[in-house]
């Protein structure tokens, strides 16, 4: 491994947690999330020369990860069912709430889900989400507004089911 690769490896080590968490909210499947994260990091390594400003690395990488997920989601592959066994092991806990959140997110259409996750998980503004996803700004705003309402309804339903 040369010096550049070692430096890139260090960048990946620092960013992997954030990118994997983002993809886990989007995919609901840990192994798929990690695979997409790997693909995004490899793509980043191959095209890092196109990055103009080193300060933009985090956002650029996040955009790559989101694009990989959107490609995967639009390819029409079915999503995995909720990990019921894991849910049963942790009836009312952080894990349970996380599973509820991920299950509720999975009910949202792809474009709505990505807008919601980028807003709530990443703290991105509407404009940044629009730039990252190439979804028009007005659509991003309505996706977040309507998606938030839908997500609350779904989580309320899950809460009722699981006695929260």
């Amino acid at each position, binding site marked *: *491994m040369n010096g550049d*690769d070692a430096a*890139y*490896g260090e960048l*990946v*080590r620092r960013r*992997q*947690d954030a990118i*994997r*968490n983002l993809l*886990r*909210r989007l995919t609901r499947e840990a192994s798929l999330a*990690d695979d997409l*994260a*790997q693909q995004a*990091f*490899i793509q980043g*390594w*191959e095209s890092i020369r196109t990055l103009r400003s080193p300060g933009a690395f985090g956002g650029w990488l996040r955009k790559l990860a989101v694009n990989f997920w959107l490609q995967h989601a639009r390819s029409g592959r079915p999503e995995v069912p909720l990990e019921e066994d894991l849910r049963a092991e942790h009836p009312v806990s*952080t894990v349970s*709430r*996380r599973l509820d*959140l*991920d299950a509720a997110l999975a009910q949202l259409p792809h474009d709505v889900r990505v807008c919601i*996750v980028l*807003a*709530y*998980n990443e703290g991105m*503004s*509407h404009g940044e989400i629009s730039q990252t996803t190439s979804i028009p700004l007005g659509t991003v705003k309505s996706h*977040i507004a309507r998606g*938030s309402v839908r*997500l*609350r309804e779904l*989580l309320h339903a899950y809460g009722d089911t699981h006695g929260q």
Partner: protein
Amino acid sequence: MLTVTRMANELDDRLLDLFSEARETLPSAEFMQTFLARMERARRVQSMRRMALIAVLGVLAAWIMPSVLASTASAVQAVQHVVVDAVGEQSQPYAALIISPAGWAVSMLIGFLVLLRTGALRRR
């Protein structure tokens, strides 16, 4: 007193808390091991692709080069003929002038001025 006002992006506080709770610290060792192996594989593929491209370019160059050289040589030859003919025609009166006594004298004068200008005649 500092007050925080929410500006453009109104977000639901309960959902913000849920997303914040859902964030986990993930073990990195296995992920990094897989990533480094994939990067190594991608690098091998990249260098093989580069070598294949160089080989293809080499074969193409070897295949095209003879015809390129032949056409270049004939073009240069044609241009050379045209230039030599034109220079020959144009330089005949000047050639007669240069080999005349006046021409010699002017040439000597010019040569002397050049030597003077360059300081070659100066004593060291």
